């Protein structure tokens, strides 16, 4: 199946995440996501799955909020509404609140479609990213060698009994 090359695959992945978000919004009036909203969403992604050693760029990629990726008006609208929802939950400027207040606000909306959609998109994208794999010690593909001669059964800390 040679037509499914890497480029198309990444394109499809990107579209899936964006489409999930786009499906929960109407059309944006402005056509562009504000820098404040981007900052808020990036902070949200970091609070969902905090890894100190990861750069903002990794979260931006996972969230698909870099300016080159967001073109779809309905997705932008969904992001804008989500950022509004965060402010409402924080009873003020969510981004300017302290960390605990930000987390409390997220907890209060964790059943919302916006939260669930963003969490699912960030989670799958983040943990499919080889940069994250390196951080957590996952080496990725193993075919054709596999681990049969490379420690598939080398656990050494189990109790003897």
């Amino acid at each position, binding site marked *: 199946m040679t037509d499914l090359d890497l480029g198309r695959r990444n394109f499809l992945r990107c579209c899936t995440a964006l489409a999930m978000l786009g499906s929960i919004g109407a059309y944006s009036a402005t056509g562009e996501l504000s820098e404040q909203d981007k900052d808020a969403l990036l902070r949200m992604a970091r609070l969902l799955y905090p890894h100190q050693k990861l750069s903002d760029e990794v979260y931006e990629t996972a969230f698909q909020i870099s300016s080159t990726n967001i073109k779809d008006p309905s997705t932008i609208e969904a992001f804008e509404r989500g950022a509004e929802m965060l402010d409402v939950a924080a009873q003020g400027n969510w981004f300017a609140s302290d960390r605990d207040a930000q987390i409390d606000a997220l907890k209060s909306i964790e059943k919302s479609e916006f939260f669930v959609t963003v969490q699912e998109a960030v989670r799958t994208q983040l943990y499919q990213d080889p940069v994250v794999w390196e951080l957590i010690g996952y080496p990725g593909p*193993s075919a054709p060698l596999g681990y049969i001669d490379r420690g598939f059964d080398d*656990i050494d800390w189990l109790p003897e009994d």
Partner: protein
Amino acid sequence: MTRAFDLKDDSVVVVIGSGAGGGTVANELAQRRIDVVCLEAGRRLSMADIVNDPPLMNERMGWHDERRGVGVNLCKTVGGTTMRWSAVSPRFHDYEFRARTTYGAIDGTSLIDWPITLEELEPYYDLAEAKMGVSGTHGLPPSAENSNFKVLKAGGQRIGYKDITSAHIAINSAPYDGRSRCRQIGFCNEGCAIGAKWSTLYTEIPKAEQTEHFELRTEATAVRINHDRTGKVTSVLYRTSEGQFHEQRARAVCVAGNVVETTRLLLMSESSRFPDGLANTSGQVGLHYTRHMANGSTGLMPGPVNMYKGARQAGFIRDEHLHDPKRGFAGGYLLELSGGPPDWVSQSAGWGEGAGRWMENYTNLAQIFLCGEDPPQETNRIYLHPTEKDEYGLQVPVLEYAHHPNTKAMLRHAAQQARALFSSLGATDVRDNSDQLGGGCHNMGVARMCADPQDGVTNRWGQTHDIENLFVSDGSLFSTSAAPNPTLTIVALAIRQAEHIAGRMVRREM
């Protein structure tokens, strides 16, 4: 030496689907010199297409057509969901074939007994295990114990379990049937890149092609089964990838679309004689849809496990696979090994500070998959959406499913046991996957076998009660779900069904 049959050739058996049920029944018929045309909606992958990349493999082999309601996790490719399965192959126990008798009446369920017994199916379980190269059977050693399995075993022993095995896995534990042994690659669910896991793509299908009694047509989606005035099925209408429609004449038809598509095809084939759907005079097509009690439990262990190294589900504990009402529910479950890449495991992580820390300890995680019986309910069902059509103009299937209280009670018990198992080895943080309503990997019921035609759709051979030359050959047949993963039983039933069909044809009864 693959054959090409004429569309007007009405001596062929048309098999719809090429997975565990369809691929097996097709090959078994072809081996008995019965001509078969197998229609598969998906494409045929080559071994070079099978790579260690879960999202890419999902694109290549997943079934992505529109569906409503609860999610399912099935494949549209030659080999069907045998490309994705983990190859866990326990047999059913005797009591599970007598579910209604054993459990008694349970409010809200539509339990029945199977119209066959374990004793009747045992010879076919033997044949299925030999066909599939199930480890620990037919001279094959048990599967190799990987580190993740050793955690399951050690923890299981600590909490008193005795029946712990790495056998009964349909992945070659030694070279077998012309295929290599498992190399502990760890990407079982992306299609096995070396063909060590049993899949019909590289076993049943090529074997059938060698008989000269078999033709596989790929990217051929069955959309309607036609019948004549006497009520026998006569042909199958299918759509090609170019959007053309062809009608293949048939002597008999076997439907194996992995439950969802089986239901859809029968219901779409309504006629003046069968106004509620083909073979549906009982009104039972699509009902009693079961999915299993299924959940994951993941423990943060005190040392490295590296669960990604090795076959994902090569072993299980059977001590809870029994009916013991003292536990507070009917039926039993298995504690099975489970593992996978980070995005898979992250489903159990939750979110927040703890989730990040937990994922950074990925190498120390061990995982269990809990799989148990899910009693049938009339309200759990698959049907056609009254108005919504997919991109091909076909009615979209709707899946309605909710857990019965019995399944919820079993979920709680199983989660507690898994937690105790990990904790006995010093696990500090055990997280359950939020229940995905059975996950949608195991689909059963909807055309269940039954002694009384009012209770279901098919008889003890998987022949529809209404139509003597129409058969169902997939998990739709299951009278009840039982606890074990369904594939081994699907294959055993398909072998038995092929023998039955061939016998009737030889005796000129069909």
